[in-house]
């Protein structure tokens, strides 16, 4: 059975009564209208209790109208698209919407934990910290239970099926907030023809005016809004973004905004759900408005207690009659309008309770003319109610200084209490990147200190954000901000100004807590933060226990820690703390504002950078061949490299064994295109390259190649590779696959910042060349069959030389380089022909059963020879001596890192040094990363001797081999050392030279 919308007014509101929308809440079906929010639809159906509070599990109802909502925090949607912790006040109603409360077990109306409220004296500030710390080790158990009992929604466990996009734009003027000030600013700025973006989090532009019955220039508020929007929409240079929350401001007017593109269904069928906008604005106009605060008094959390702006909003915008009997409790004039709104909607307004002895300004007469009684100098001190919420309020007179209650209590029957404690400007965006705030003594709120904006000359503030609450003044400020942002004079701005009739306003008066004679602790609970159940007593207690900084008080009491970030209660809490500390509010200050203003989904933050688009994937010119030939791939840097090529259901180990043996016995081929390649040219090229490498390059002959090591300024190895000398003034250097981009900028950095006098240019040619390494004793024969214009004999083409020639008419550069110890050549060709060349070599190699192999086999082959891989056998703390590569360090030359390399610490003989290891059991392969100790038996903490950097089973040798960094390892050849394993076993192993195979290098020449 679907319930009727018994609380819906017969007419009015920005809803479409022609479009009924069905939805369910906690399993029960309801109907709302197009234009409703989930909150307004629930209220229209008389759903007063929407959740249970976090700590005490008290019943809570809708409190606010928008982003400030602390109570109506719901789970919305089902399955993969379900979203936790949605503010019902900002969820657009759609047909089929499914919502439920995020806490309250088993249901909101009957909560098993509600009994906790009876023990609430025990649940004071810091309760969790104090109670569950004994025994210390049990905290994890407690934590799990506590989280279960509170809980704030569930994340979907399925993959999000929705589509989220990112959008990067630049604007001359970005206006955040499309209330009266923002709209006025936009219209003023739009005329310039400059690029203007105006964004507002609500479904429609208009801000607070959407609930207003005011007239602007004789037009009803809604008509005035429509007129402004029409004007803006007609401008090509203006982008209008409703449903878009600017949630963070970062340096230099970089503003992040979340647009809710499609929120009209749970199933979007590929339509974009949300877009994350990155806006870079030259000028920023903040017109973010202000958020109404509550007031603290006994049992102020009962369903039916709502912000006055929310009451007016539900009545005027959504045509929801919230109850039958209304009362207003306020310390300022604005809530008087709510009394009028209630009365007009057919509610009986029994009283306006105003803490100010003098009452309100001119609006008081209007109110009294409607027969509404004003209790000036009174306060609500308690509420009473039942399962459905508020039934009556109790009021008492206040002393002149508001420090005491006096007189007789008066009980007033009501089911709606509209409260207003003044307004807190939405200073969040201003504060996100370090803007400071100042206390506005007249309006009792923090406003932006404009001089502290990141770009003070290019940032403008308009409207309620400045504690400017009159519509007329908001218009004026908006117009001025808009003109200033486009560099126009604001002098004559006053002329064309619409007329607005407004009341004379009496000043707001401070009233932060109810002055109970027995004190706050022995009086009914006065909530400051509904979402975290933080009460006046908690703040008092925190101060009593010695907390002084508001940041500490916040963390101790959880004030403002909820998903609402304390938008309605923080200032009240800070004021309570200030009073207890005997300080002024500005001395206590605010806590830090951080993005996001309201929560942002992970889906939007990720956008389309998911799956294969998470990080660019680089592929070589031969990639499609590898795929077609069944290669498994591994990621190296951003490159996808063939890892091994399993044949006929081979395991990785079987494939690698076959590939290794084939290379050693005959010939293999490897796609080596991913190595970084940089051309270095200029009259100082030799000098420059010589500085880059530890070993000498000045005298390298043209046509020859040399292996070199590069160090950082700290003397540690950062890269290695082979450099070719193309001409006297021209080198061609190889970097590691992963190091290419860094080494290229590293070289540019030295050339540009340290040695600008050197004549040297660099160009990256990594992508231009496709490289096929042909490796093994038969490699010469394969290439001889392909290439006629190069003599491949040892005499004509020695190790570490390169030749230019042609294969089938294509120019190639062939280098004799070996990373396996075998006779080997690398064939480089313009990558447009990379796959063709690879196929030719594969075809020519068939005579020798040529075997394509991947990086795993490459690793085994090089480890058999003890060749290091930078980044695997080194970790940024390894110098050339540690690698037993002192032979590679020039004694009579300068190079980057040489001074560091001479430091005493770099020469210690007990540094961790790279050695080989062979296990006693030849079949046992030690896991990479495993630690090493000196003895089989040891106590924890063990005397760690080092760790395994590379480890494989060598089918060529018939036993496992490993490389390890071991303290003083180079002097410990033959020693036994042990590797304890996670399963409790210990692997016995012996330190040996890291050159396991062909120690004399006899295989190099084939």
């Amino acid at each position, binding site marked *: 059975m679907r319930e009727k919308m018994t609380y819906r007014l017969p007419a009015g509101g920005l809803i479409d009564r022609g479009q009924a929308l069905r939805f369910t809440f906690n399993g029960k079906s309801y109907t709302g209208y197009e234009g409703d929010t989930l909150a307004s639809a629930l209220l229209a159906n008389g759903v007063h209790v929407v959740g249970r509070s976090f700590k005490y599990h008290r019943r809570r109802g809708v409190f606010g109208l928008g982003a400030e909502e602390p109570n109506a925090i719901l789970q919305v949607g089902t399955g993969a698209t379900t979203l936790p912790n949605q503010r019902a006040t900002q969820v657009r109603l759609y047909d089929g919407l499914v919502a439920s409360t995020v806490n309250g077990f088993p249901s909101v109306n009957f909560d098993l934990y509600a009994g906790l409220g009876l023990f609430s004296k025990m649940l004071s500030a810091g309760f969790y910290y104090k109670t569950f710390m004994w025994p210390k080790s049990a905290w994890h158990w407690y934590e799990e239970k506590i989280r279960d009992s509170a809980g704030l929604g569930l994340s979907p466990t399925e993959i999000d099926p929705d*589509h989220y996009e990112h959008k990067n734009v630049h604007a001359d003027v970005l206006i955040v907030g499309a209330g009266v000030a923002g709209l006025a600013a936009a219209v003023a700025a739009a005329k310039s023809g400059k690029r203007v973006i105006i964004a507002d989090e609500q479904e429609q532009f208009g801000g607070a005016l959407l609930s207003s019955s005011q007239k602007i220039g004789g037009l009803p508020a809604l008509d005035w809004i429509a007129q402004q929007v029409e004007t803006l929409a007609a401008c090509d240079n203006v982008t209008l973004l409703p449903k878009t929350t600017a949630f963070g401001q970062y340096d230099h007017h970089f503003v992040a905004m979340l647009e809710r593109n499609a929120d009209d269904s749970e199933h979007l069928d590929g339509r974009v759900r949300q877009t994350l906008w990155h806006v870079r604005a030259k000028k920023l106009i903040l017109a973010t408005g202000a958020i109404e605060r509550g007031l603290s008094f006994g049992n102020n959390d009962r369903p039916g207690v709502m912000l006055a702006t929310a009451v007016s909003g539900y009545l005027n915008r959504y045509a929801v009659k919230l109850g039958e009997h209304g009362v207003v409790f306020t310390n300022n004039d604005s809530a008087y309008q709510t009394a009028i709104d209630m009365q007009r909607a057919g509610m009986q307004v029994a009283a306006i309770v105003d803490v100010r002895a003098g009452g309100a300004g001119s609006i008081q007469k209007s109110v009294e003319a409607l027969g509404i009684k004003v209790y000036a100098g009174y306060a609500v001190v308690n509420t009473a109610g039942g399962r459905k919420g508020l039934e009556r309020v109790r009021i008492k007179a206040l002393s002149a200084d508001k420090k005491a209650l006096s007189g007789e209590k008066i009980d007033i029957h009501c089911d709606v209490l509209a409260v207003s404690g003044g307004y807190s400007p939405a200073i969040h965006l201003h504060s996100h990147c370090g803007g400071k705030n100042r206390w506005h003594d007249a309006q009792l709120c923090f406003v932006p200190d404009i001089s502290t904006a990141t770009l003070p000359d290019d940032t403008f503030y308009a409207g309620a954000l400045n504690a400017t609450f009159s519509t007329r003044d908001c218009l004026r400020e908006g117009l001025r901000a808009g003109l200033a942002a486009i560099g126009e004079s604001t002098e004559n701005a006053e002329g064309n100004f619409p007329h607005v009739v407004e009341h004379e306003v009496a000043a707001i008066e401070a009233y932060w807590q109810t002055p109970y004679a027995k004190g706050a602790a022995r009086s009914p609970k006065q909530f400051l933060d509904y979402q975290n159940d933080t009460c006046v007593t908690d703040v008092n207690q925190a101060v009593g226990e010695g907390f002084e900084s508001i940041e500490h008080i916040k963390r101790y009491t959880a004030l403002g820690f909820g998903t609402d970030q304390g938008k309605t209660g923080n200032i009240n809490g800070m004021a309570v703390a200030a009073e207890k500390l005997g300080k002024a509010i500005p001395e206590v200050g605010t806590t830090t504002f951080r993005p996001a203003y309201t929560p942002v989904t992970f889906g939007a933050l990720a956008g389309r950078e998911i799956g294969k688009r998470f990080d660019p994937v680089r592929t070589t010119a031969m990639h499609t061949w590898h795929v077609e030939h069944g290669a498994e791939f591994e990621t190296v840097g951003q490159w996808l490299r063939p890892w091994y090529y399993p044949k006929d259901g081979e395991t990785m180990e079987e494939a690698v064994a076959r590939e290794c043996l084939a290379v050693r016995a005959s010939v293999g081929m490897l796609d080596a295109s991913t190595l970084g390649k940089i*051309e270095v040219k200029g009259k100082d090229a030799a000098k420059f390259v010589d500085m880059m490498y530890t070993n000498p390059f000045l005298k390298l002959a043209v046509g020859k190649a040399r292996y070199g090591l590069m160090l950082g300024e700290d003397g540690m190895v950062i890269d290695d590779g082979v450099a070719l000398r193309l001409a006297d003034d021209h080198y061609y250097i190889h970097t590691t696959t992963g190091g290419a981009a860094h080494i290229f900028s590293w070289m540019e950095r030295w050339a540009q910042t340290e040695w600008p006098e050197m004549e040297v240019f660099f160009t990256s040619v990594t992508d231009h060349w496709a490289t096929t390494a042909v490796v093994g004793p038969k490699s010469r024969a394969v290439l001889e069959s392909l290439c006629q214009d190069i003599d491949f004999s040892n005499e004509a083409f020695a190790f570490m030389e390169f030749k230019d020639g042609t294969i*089938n008419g294509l120019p190639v550069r062939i280098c004799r380089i070996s990373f396996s110890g075998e006779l080997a050549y690398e064939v480089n*060709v313009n990558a447009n022909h990379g796959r063709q060349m690879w196929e030719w070599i594969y075809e020519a190699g068939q005579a020798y059963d040529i075997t394509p192999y991947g990086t795993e086999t490459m690793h085994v082959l090089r480890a058999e020879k003890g060749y290091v891989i930078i980044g695997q056998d080194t970790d940024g703390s390894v110098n050339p001596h540690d690698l037993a590569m002192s032979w590679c360090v020039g004694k009579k030359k300068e190079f980057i890192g040489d001074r560091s390399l001479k430091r005493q610490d770099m020469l210690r003989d007990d540094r961790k040094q790279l050695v080989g290891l062979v296990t006693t059991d030849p079949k046992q392969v030690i896991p990479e990363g495993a630690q090493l100790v000196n003895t089989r038996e040891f106590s924890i903490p063990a005397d760690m001797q080092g760790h395994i950097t590379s480890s494989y089973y060598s089918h060529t040798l018939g036993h496992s081999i490993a490389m390890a960094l071991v303290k003083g390892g180079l002097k410990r050849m033959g020693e036994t050392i042990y590797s304890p394993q996670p399963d409790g076993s210990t692997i016995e192993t012996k330190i040996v030279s890291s050159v396991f195979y062909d120690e004399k290098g006899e295989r190099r020449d084939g």
Partner: protein
Amino acid sequence: MVNAVTTPSTAGVSAMQANIDAYRAGLSAGHSATDVDRAGVVLQEKKCLGYINLRVKDDDQAAFDAVKSVLGLALPALSQCVSDDKLTGLCYSPSEWLVITPSGEETAMIAALQTALAEHHSLVADVTGGTTMLTVSGAHAQDLLEKGTYVDLHDQAFAANQLYATQIAHAPATIVKNGSNDFSLIVRRSFANHIAEWALDGGREFGVCFS
């Protein structure tokens, strides 16, 4: 011994073939506009043009003149692009240019540049195999690019014949503006597949066509 084969033409070699094929295979599955007229985004790979990276000092007027004598085209100023009916020159940095030649003409051009610049501090490098071009046009071309790059593409800020050397979808790329909603992306071969995949994905909501 493999018999001598005629030098293969490069005309059919694509750096993005894997994704173009996948896109074509997926056409019947919907999501994409199948013809140029209806697509909001039209992608086209300009295959196998010649690309020459050129470095000369920013104050070496004689070198500029020498280059002009070879190209018949003056080197453009920073972040500018110049073209004649054959060649296009792009300026990446105060001392770095890219010259784009018709397919197959790069080798002779490189030799001519090296000869002309022999007496100047210079580096002329063939990057033909490492570079490809993807044109992005259509009513939503700019909308697509704004999904993946941070630079300002708006006509007010980015005029025809200007370029950015930047990133698209976190991959290095050069964006050249040909006109409103008409761009050429110059991308490195190894990233070409990634960028093509990204463009096809991002173009879906506008209707995308790989011509």
